[in-house]
């Protein structure tokens, strides 16, 4: 008999996730830790956490970590990657951001990092609202979706349209990899891990900006059970935000 699952080495000992019950953030952090273990990069990794629930990453992941001002994670990661390169070191640098951080307040920093082909990886948790502040309308809130600042549902007259982040990033010439994944069932979790790992590997190969958008639940603010939230992703959100690899320089 062999052990087929254990807590990843790159998770801090005795750490307990402080995300809400059923929140997909926990699964995403676990996948990242597993991939860091598998690629054996724990000692070379510098993670950039951002504002919102994703900042909690640094309490759980056992790698060097810096918190970025809201939206600036890709700029901070750029500085870290380039500064180490100037000193002759090749470090593994990735950001862990929410959709508000990556695609609203930080869109300029995110897009320009992709355009420069900055050799970093960005992971964006898209839960279609501002989670930590209680579920307000964000850049990815779906048309018709009710939030605390779109109480009769998002409509184009008041709020305009949501952004399809992975598609936009795929359009940048400096992007090596851009994909959208989900975590609502085992099959998708397995696929998410595969795509995140590929994004990490592309950075290791020096191919440029790699990006994975993770469609995630926010059961607390969606006011759904974890099960209902997963069903919402499967039935509704994947129709708006298709799960797909939008750019893959090694396989396109």
């Amino acid at each position, binding site marked *: *008999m062999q052990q087929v699952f254990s*807590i990843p080495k790159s998770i801090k000992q005795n750490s307990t996730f402080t*995300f809400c019950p059923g929140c997909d953030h*926990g699964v995403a952090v676990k996948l990242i830790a597993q991939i860091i273990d598998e690629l054996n990069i724990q000692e070379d990794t510098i993670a950039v956490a951002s504002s919102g629930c994703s900042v909690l990453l640094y309490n759980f992941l056992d790698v060097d970590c810096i918190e970025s001002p809201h939206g600036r994670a890709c700029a901070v990661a750029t500085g870290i990657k380039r500064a180490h390169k100037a000193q002759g070191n090749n470090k593994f640098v990735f950001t862990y951001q929410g959709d508000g951080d990556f695609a609203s307040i930080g869109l300029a920093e995110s897009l320009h990092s992709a355009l420069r082909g900055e050799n970093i990886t960005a992971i964006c948790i898209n839960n279609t609202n501002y989670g930590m502040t209680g579920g307000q309308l964000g850049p990815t809130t779906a048309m018709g979706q009710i939030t605390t600042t779109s109480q009769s549902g998002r409509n184009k007259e008041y709020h305009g349209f949501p952004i399809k982040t992975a598609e936009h990033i795929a359009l940048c010439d400096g992007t090596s990899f851009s994909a959208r994944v989900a975590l609502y*069932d085992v099959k998708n*979790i397995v696929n998410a891990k595969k795509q995140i790992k590929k994004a990490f590997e592309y950075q290791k190969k020096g191919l440029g900006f790699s990006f994975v958008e993770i469609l995630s639940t926010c059961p607390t603010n969606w006011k759904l059970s*974890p*099960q209902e939230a*997963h069903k919402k992703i499967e039935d509704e959100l994947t129709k708006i935000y298709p799960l797909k690899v939008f750019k893959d320089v090694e396989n396109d």
Partner: protein
Amino acid sequence: MSHIKIDSSKCKSCYLCVDVCPKKLIKKSETIGKTGNCVVEFDDKNSQCIGCAQCAMVCPDMAIVEVYR
């Protein structure tokens, strides 16, 4: 004998593992956890666990800490 180990101090009672177990070996226990709901327990009297680790994969809190096959 395949089995899992649960750290119930980490369980937040989302029950995603209960739904995913193909053999229905994880269930609500009598113990109240930190969210005020019953934490899960592993109940495999007939040694049906196949060690597929799907429960560990979906658990967002890494409360399923070990899986053996």
